[in-house]
């Protein structure tokens, strides 16, 4: 099971609904907006995810930054695995 499973659909929906201008901003700004979205719209799920990540010494901000930079949500969800056709 992936760490972000409880929030995955919400994050995909959030990203797909943003404008092109939003996506063209730098990663720092997008990260702030994404964290604000999680804190205000999904506070309980976010807290739960943070606790889960802490057990593995992982940081939500760092993972979100990686996802926003890579454009591959799978990098965020399954950082250690590659596509089956790779």
């Amino acid at each position: 099971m992936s760490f972000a499973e409880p929030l995955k659909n919400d994050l995909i929906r959030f990203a797909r609904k943003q404008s092109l201008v939003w996506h063209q901003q730098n990663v720092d700004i997008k990260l702030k907006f994404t964290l604000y979205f999680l804190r205000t719209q999904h506070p309980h799920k976010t807290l739960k995810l943070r606790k889960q990540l802490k057990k593995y010494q992982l940081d939500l901000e760092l993972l979100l930054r990686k996802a926003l930079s890579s454009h591959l949500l799978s990098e965020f969800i399954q950082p250690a695995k590659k596509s089956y056709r790779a």
Partner: protein
Amino acid sequence: MSIFKIKPLLSLLLSSLLLSCALGHGLNYTIAATAPPLFAKQDALAYTINLLENHPEIKQRLLEPTHLTLGEDWAYQSQTYGSESTMLHLIALQIKAMAERNAIQSTEDVLDPEFGIGSKNHKDKGTINNPLS
């Protein structure tokens, strides 16, 4: 001029505007030379625009929440893209990233019915051709 003649023109105009807008922002959609031959050095945005122009049924599915494809009983619902420009941008960047990881070799991979654009996996998991996501 009939609506049927205007629609492709408008679509072309939108695509051109999006391309110039992206270039204006210095975004790099160029796929690395190390990607599979079909994608190497290609502009991922131009490839995506062309791909979806040739597959209007997929484009419709990605943009219209309740659109049902023939023979399927599910739609993208709330997972549709908010606008065509966002859709093209995000899909282009995914194609670029997956091609550079050598995770896609062909257009068939991009349109794979199980893991490609327009599939249930893409709707729910957000990735192209990646069953591990």
